[in-house]
């Protein structure tokens, strides 16, 4: 343990308004901490620069999952376990439930939160590609009020987001219109559990009259931000799936991504595997097997 707890302030206002007031009073001074599965690792390693933390683990408004006719709204401090256990989420948003089951072991799923994953903004986070293909919308809240942001525009660079210094993510809402899609997710890590992804694919597809009606592809760990492969999607729209198309899709996908060499893997490997995962998905879509 390389940090001195005596140097860290942690306040627990306990309700949303009081929390936002503290954050507004000293913008960018207060680091929100929910389940702590990211923050506490940095803290223990002596690498947490923030000295003032604000506890959002115990705020009821951030813990609810509400089901509306058109959308599901997930409180930002919902844990991965809560996501996995929620019937609508596992049934209608299997990519998210699957991503939740991949994040850490059970103990970390009991503490890690979806909002924490998003705000931490690591491009390797497991749940972010799923949110991209599900057209997630975030509600950001501060003392100044609330605003809606399409998840696709949330990340602006490596660990950079549009979240203002005094803002919290209040909830993540997902439109309930993907039940008829084929869903497919694959995470490639150094081992089968407790692994930071080297490449991660979340994909949805729908065929009509033998051609692609809609296809959505998102990859993690291949760019500074989680990435929707819009170029590949546009190229694929309306086409029939044949081996030649799959090869073009593979190359197009590889041209959209910018993977790097790092401590876990290499750019070349990530690129090739990303291409393979996209190809694998298209083959599955062509076969018409529902997840």
């Amino acid at each position, binding site marked *: 343990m390389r940090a001195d707890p005596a140097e860290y302030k*942690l306040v*627990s206002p306990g309700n949303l308004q009081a929390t936002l007031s503290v954050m507004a009073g000293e913008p960018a001074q207060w680091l929100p901490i929910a389940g*702590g599965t990211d923050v*506490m*690792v940095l803290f223990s390693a002596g690498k947490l620069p923030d000295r003032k933390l604000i506890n959002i683990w115990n705020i009821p408004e951030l813990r609810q999952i509400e089901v509306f006719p058109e959308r599901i709204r997930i409180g930002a401090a919902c844990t991965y376990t809560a996501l996995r256990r929620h019937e609508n989420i596992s049934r209608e948003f299997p990519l998210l439930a699957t991503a939740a089951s991949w994040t850490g*072991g059970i*103990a*970390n799923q009991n503490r890690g939160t979806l909002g924490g994953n998003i705000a931490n903004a690591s491009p390797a986070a497991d749940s972010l590609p799923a949110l991209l293909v599900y057209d997630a919308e975030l509600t950001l809240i501060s003392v100044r009020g609330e605003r809606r942001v399409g998840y696709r525009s949330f990340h602006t660079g490596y660990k950079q987001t549009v979240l203002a210094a005094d803002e919290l993510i209040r909830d993540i809402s997902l439109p309930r219109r993907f039940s008829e899609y084929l869903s497919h997710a694959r995470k490639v890590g150094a081992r089968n559990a*407790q692994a930071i992804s080297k490449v991660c694919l979340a994909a949805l597809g729908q065929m009509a009259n033998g051609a692609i009606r809609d296809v959505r592809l998102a990859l993690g760990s291949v760019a500074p931000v989680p990435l929707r492969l819009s170029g590949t999607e546009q190229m694929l729209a309306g086409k029939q799936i044949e081996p030649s198309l799959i090869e073009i899709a593979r190359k197009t996908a590889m041209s959209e991504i910018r993977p790097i060499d790092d401590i876990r893997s290499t750019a070349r490997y990530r690129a090739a595997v990303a291409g393979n995962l996209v190809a694998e998905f298209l083959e599955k879509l062509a076969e018409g097997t529902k997840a």
Partner: protein
Amino acid sequence: MNPSQQSIAKSEILFTVNGDARKVLAHPMERLLDVLRNDLKLTGAKEGCGEGECGSCSILLDGMLVNSCLVPVAQAGGANIITIEGMSAHALMKPLQEAFLECGGAQCGICTPGMILAAVHLLEKKPEPVIADIREGLAGNLCRCTGYMQIFEAVAKAARRRVAT
């Protein structure tokens, strides 16, 4: 970082540990693991990695298995905490202990408290687990000695015995 920064005051944190109401005076960002071990002398939870990877620090917090090295003690205020030391009365404890001893589930023993709590957590949710459930339930607990095989056997055996009684 200002080296002469004033030290943050300790605060009182109340929680229930192994059935007893306890009060500690601690800095809010002290790790729950350290408070349990150093303040309450409950040394069953161990530090193996300090990064939430090995599970040796696992405890039950409000019925949920968590890595206590990743929980700031302030967040445990009001919680119901159970460590390995508080498990002796738990219905699953005797079958698990016996099974671990019969099957060789504990070698060096350092992962064992966390492993048993993870097994309890699993069996409470899945009383009749198949091998895939056991593997998944224990995936957050690293064991370097056993290669896991005898741990799986022990958990499966404990589950069978529990169901039988």
